[in-house]
């Protein structure tokens, strides 16, 4: 009887390089998502394919809310639209009680189109054009000022509307743990934030009601948030004392890490990424200490606003891709070419995503480079990963991919594929159809003289 053919390979034995903390993987393939088989979905919707788990999405945001609501009396979550603004995903989170947190005119209108009233929108970002600023002020959105020009612009809008507009200001400062994002908001150390507060206090049209800051992204040290809270509460006390305003909320932005592996990170994410409970303990514990005297002084405890995006959506979505070719590289490593690359997986620039075959594969794993389909040298999905031999047609599951890929993906030489959602009851729904050539070229207009490519006949 003939033996089964598996691609021949030869793996050199190398000493060292083992990670004594390395986790043992319980499963070396993934064939389903929430009990729904993936292979038939690929047949029906094509490869590559994004698949969202509604269950994981809801579970994540509920865990986040529970972690904070059991430690602080007034908690609000604003869903960060820029992380993933597919309408179905936004509305899952709105159904769970999250407000919309938007950073541009486009996102504001997207939230409104999703059915979110302005009064449930937190409006951040460095550029809010006048017409949208006016609409947001009219509709009672929570507006966070980024710079002085915006302060003056909003004051004019409020004057035009003939009403006092409540407003928050974005702060930036050095926590000692993360790089200060000084390009957003008013700086604390330089006195710019205090000047802005004084200017707002002097205006009959503006009323300071909240403070906002965002200390960074993928913040792994929870002490950074404790420092943020101490700085913000100190400033809150100072501005209330100086101007007589009452701060109703502290918005601490986002930045919680997801269970993804940053490139260059030594330990696996399961061991290094804090849980929601660990973040909550650091944040709410510090908040409790810093606001002890407020109730006795007759001041309200501030509402804590979270803009957690990445940690809520990242592991709720996978990308399924298929091997379209393979090669042996000159240095002996194996290369596999996939039908999905950086065009769909922007986060591959900084993450080592987990990659598993769709079905169990025979053969010993060897070092493999996963390339995307783009005609660009930088299109590398994984620079080095141990995988069994891969034949053309084998599919791989890449995860977690829910954060930033469906908003930062590019239409570069390829159409963007479908996104489907496995719903809570196990149904599968398309939440974004795959693009067709007409979707892209339909916006183009060709002048009359350029309608024909070869008016003089075909070139030699």
């Amino acid at each position, binding site marked *: 009887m*003939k*033996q*089964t*053919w*598996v*691609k*021949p*390979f*030869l*793996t*050199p*034995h190398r000493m060292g390089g083992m990670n004594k903390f390395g986790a043992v993987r319980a499963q070396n393939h993934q064939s389903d998502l929430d009990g729904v088989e993936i292979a038939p979905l690929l047949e029906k919707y094509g490869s590559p394919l994004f698949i969202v788990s509604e269950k994981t999405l809801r579970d994540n945001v509920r865990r986040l809310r529970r972690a904070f609501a059991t430690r602080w009396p007034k908690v609000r979550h604003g869903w960060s639209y820029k992380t993933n603004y597919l309408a179905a995903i936004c509305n899952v989170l709105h159904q769970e009680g999250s407000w919309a947190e938007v950073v541009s005119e486009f996102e504001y209108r997207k939230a409104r189109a999703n059915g979110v009233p302005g009064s449930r929108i937190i409006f951040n970002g460095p550029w809010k054009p006048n017409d949208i600023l006016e609409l947001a002020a009219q509709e009672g959105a929570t507006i966070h000022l980024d710079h002085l020009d915006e302060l003056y612009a909003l004051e004019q809008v409020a004057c035009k509307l003939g009403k006092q507009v409540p407003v928050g200001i974005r702060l930036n400062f050095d926590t000692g743990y993360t790089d200060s994002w000084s390009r957003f908001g008013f700086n604390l150390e330089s006195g710019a934030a205090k000047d802005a507060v004084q200017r707002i206090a002097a205006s009959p049209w503006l009323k300071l009601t909240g403070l906002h800051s965002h200390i960074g992204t993928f913040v792994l040290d929870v002490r950074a948030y404790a420092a943020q809270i101490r700085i913000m509460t100190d400033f809150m006390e100072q501005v209330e004392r100086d101007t007589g305003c009452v701060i109703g909320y502290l918005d601490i932005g986002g930045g919680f890490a997801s269970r993804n592996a940053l490139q260059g990170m030594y330990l696996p994410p399961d061991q290094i990424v804090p849980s929601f409970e660990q973040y909550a303990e650091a944040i709410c514990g510090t908040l409790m200490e810093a606001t002890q005297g407020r109730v006795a002084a007759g001041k309200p405890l501030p509402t804590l606003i979270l803009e957690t995006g990445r940690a809520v959506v990242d592991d709720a979505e996978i990308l399924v891709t298929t091997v379209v070719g*393979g*090669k*042996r*590289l*000159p*240095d*002996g490593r194996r290369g596999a070419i996939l039908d999905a690359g950086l065009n769909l997986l922007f986060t591959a620039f900084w993450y080592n995503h987990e990659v598993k075959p769709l079905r169990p594969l025979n*053969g*010993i794993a060897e070092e493999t480079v996963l390339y995307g389909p783009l005609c660009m040298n930088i299109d590398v999905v994984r620079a080095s990963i141990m995988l069994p*031999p891969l034949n053309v047609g084998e599919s791989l599951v890449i995860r977690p991919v829910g954060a930033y890929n469906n908003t930062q993906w590019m239409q570069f030489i390829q159409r963007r594929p479908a996104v489907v959602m496995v719903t809570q009851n196990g149904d599968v729904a398309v939440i974004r159809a795959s693009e067709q050539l007409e979707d892209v070229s339909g916006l183009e207009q060709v002048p009359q003289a350029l309608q024909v490519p070869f008016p003089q006949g075909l070139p030699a």
Partner: protein
Amino acid sequence: MNGQAVEFPKQALLTRLALSDSGFVFDPVTGNSFTVNTSGLSILRLLQKTEDWTDIIATLQADFEVSYSVAERDVLEFATALRSAFK
């Protein structure tokens, strides 16, 4: 496919390799060791005896459930791996 065009490592180099049935490959000159799978082991054993392309592919087809084109493609790729491992 013209087998003459495929360059494998020198036969003297390949014949000195110690091959075990479990897929352990040892080069006594360099001290390097490797793991090879069943199909790779068959190819190495064939190459220790012959460099005839037609023979190699025909033997593989006799021993394995594989088409000519798949065997040809995979052996071509394996040749690259061998050239890289045994310089």
